């Protein structure tokens, strides 16, 4: 039924995007991979191939080992807290409460601002103060509320630096998981829960056997999204803490930036970027393939 010639018009119109993505995503990824195998660790490009040397150096580097550890701690705290808080808030808001809109909007508000903005604010909130200043920020708040035991050195304490960053990230993203779960809860057919209640199932049983299984795809999707955000985390760390004492707040993305654009070690920086890309791909590609299969 198609008019002659029109078969190619759609392809013509999508071509600029396909070419742009082909070059700026796939071409550039290939280019970065190539750089990571070269000797270009100075201002001037040097494309002599050196094999996996940059990667071997990277994995032997203490800062990178700390970074991988920090990423793991950050990811676990960030993803688990966002899921639990998001689910709790969604379930509570779903109880036909008064002022639902106000709660929902306030929980989501942090999501709209830049990581740089939240980094600047949390930098001051988690500032542990000093002997001259006394307690400031949240420590001072805890002191006033008589919760002194909660006080801490936050990001200045090498043991928990990355946790302080994770708390700020949870502040920003838990409202988002709340919104995902709330949309999911609203999608569960009411009859299902009602029928179970008539059959004498307790609220807990309904939650465990009906609600949770229904929310499983949402949890799965949220883990992918949050997980890849935490692997890529950069802005928040830059604005809030920087690398921190003994690299306790450092992350691979920041290491990559320092190595490449401050240290001019382009090949070394490229190798960090490729490792980051591989980690993200491990998470994203299976997700894209399953979604793609479902629709094809």
């Amino acid at each position: 039924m198609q008019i002659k010639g029109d078969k190619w018009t759609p392809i013509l119109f999508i071509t600029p995007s396909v070419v742009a993505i082909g070059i700026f995503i796939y071409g550039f990824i290939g280019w970065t991979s190539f750089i990571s195998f070269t000797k270009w660790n100075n201002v001037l490009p040097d494309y002599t191939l050196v094999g996996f040397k940059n990667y071997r150096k990277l994995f032997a580097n203490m800062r990178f080992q700390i970074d991988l550890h920090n990423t793991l701690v950050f990811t676990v705290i960030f993803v688990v807290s966002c899921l639990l808080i998001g689910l709790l808030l969604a379930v509570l808001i779903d109880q036909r409460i008064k002022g639902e809109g106000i709660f929902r909007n306030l929980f989501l508000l942090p999501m709209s601002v830049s990581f740089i903005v939240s980094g600047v604010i949390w930098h001051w909130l988690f500032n542990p103060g000093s002997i001259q200043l006394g307690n400031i920020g949240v420590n001072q708040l805890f002191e006033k509320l008589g919760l002194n035991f909660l006080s801490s050195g936050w990001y200045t304490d090498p043991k928990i630096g990355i946790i302080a960053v994770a708390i700020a990230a949870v502040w920003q993203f838990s409202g988002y998981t709340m919104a995902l779960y709330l949309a999911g809860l609203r999608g569960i057919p009411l009859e299902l829960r009602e029928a179970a209640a008539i059959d004498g199932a307790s609220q807990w049983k309904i939650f465990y056997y009906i609600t949770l299984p229904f929310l499983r795809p949402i949890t799965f999707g949220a883990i992918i999204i949050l997980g890849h955000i935490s692997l890529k985390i950069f802005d928040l760390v830059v604005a809030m803490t920087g690398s921190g004492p003994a690299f306790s707040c450092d992350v691979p993305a920041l290491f990559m930036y320092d190595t490449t654009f401050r240290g001019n070690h382009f090949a070394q920086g490229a190798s960090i970027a490729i490792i980051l890309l591989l980690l993200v791909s491990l998470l994203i590609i299976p997700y894209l393939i399953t979604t793609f299969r479902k629709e094809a």
Partner: protein
Amino acid sequence: MKISAIRLLIYIILVIFIIFYIIPMYIMLVTGMKSFSEVGLSTMWNLPRSLNFESFRTAWLGSAKGGFRGLSGSFFNSVLLVIPATIISALFGSLNGYVLTKWRFRGSDLIFTMILFGMFIPYQSIIIPLVLTLQRLHVYGTIPGLILVHVIYGIPISTLIFRNYYITVPTEMVEASKIDGANFLGIYRWIIFPLSTPGFAVAMIWQFTSIWNDFLFGLIVTPNPASQPITVALNNLAGSYIVQWNVQIAGALLTALPPILIYVFLGKFFLRGLLQGSLKG
């Protein structure tokens, strides 16, 4: 009796979380409104005694005496950057979404998945070649260069948003006009585009917010202060030891203001973008 106790507990938990979410906003507002004589760190939780916008003024205009730049220039850089980048990437998204839903061809699903992958990659993995290419094109360090970057890397998300939106437009309408002899552009112009307002609202609000909030591209593509976007300028302001903390926080509020206003007035579309941007409809 028991039920109301549970409801009370629900409200208590919700209010505790409200406090957690509101604290940073509270600090932003009260600190910004205090006068310089009142802003001591040890009294950061106190309400201001009188309204004073000195901190905002200093954050906006900078201080010749203090030797730092204000955010006003970068604010306008961001405006200049975000408006064209948002509009152009939405147009690309709309055309791509139209092709990928109404004119599907062999391999179009694969193309869509390939485009989508671009949304998730860490931009570190393309940033070195990007800088080299922008230098070659003579747009490195310029706002047009940054616009180009945001348009290209905005294609995946805007394509996704429009594709999910156009799936809800009945294909029969398009098929019928094909039989009536309308062509690709005619159908877009007379049927699809007029129906696209909600799609454009979601895509443009999403793109506006994420381009405004972007830091990495701004940091690396525009290193010179004259063309920096506001997030980069704020980070410099906050990283400088000579800038008082209340000025930094006032600057944070100025930076946050446009996306917050969008969220407050167009929150419905913002939320829709959020849900689509992650879990496909």
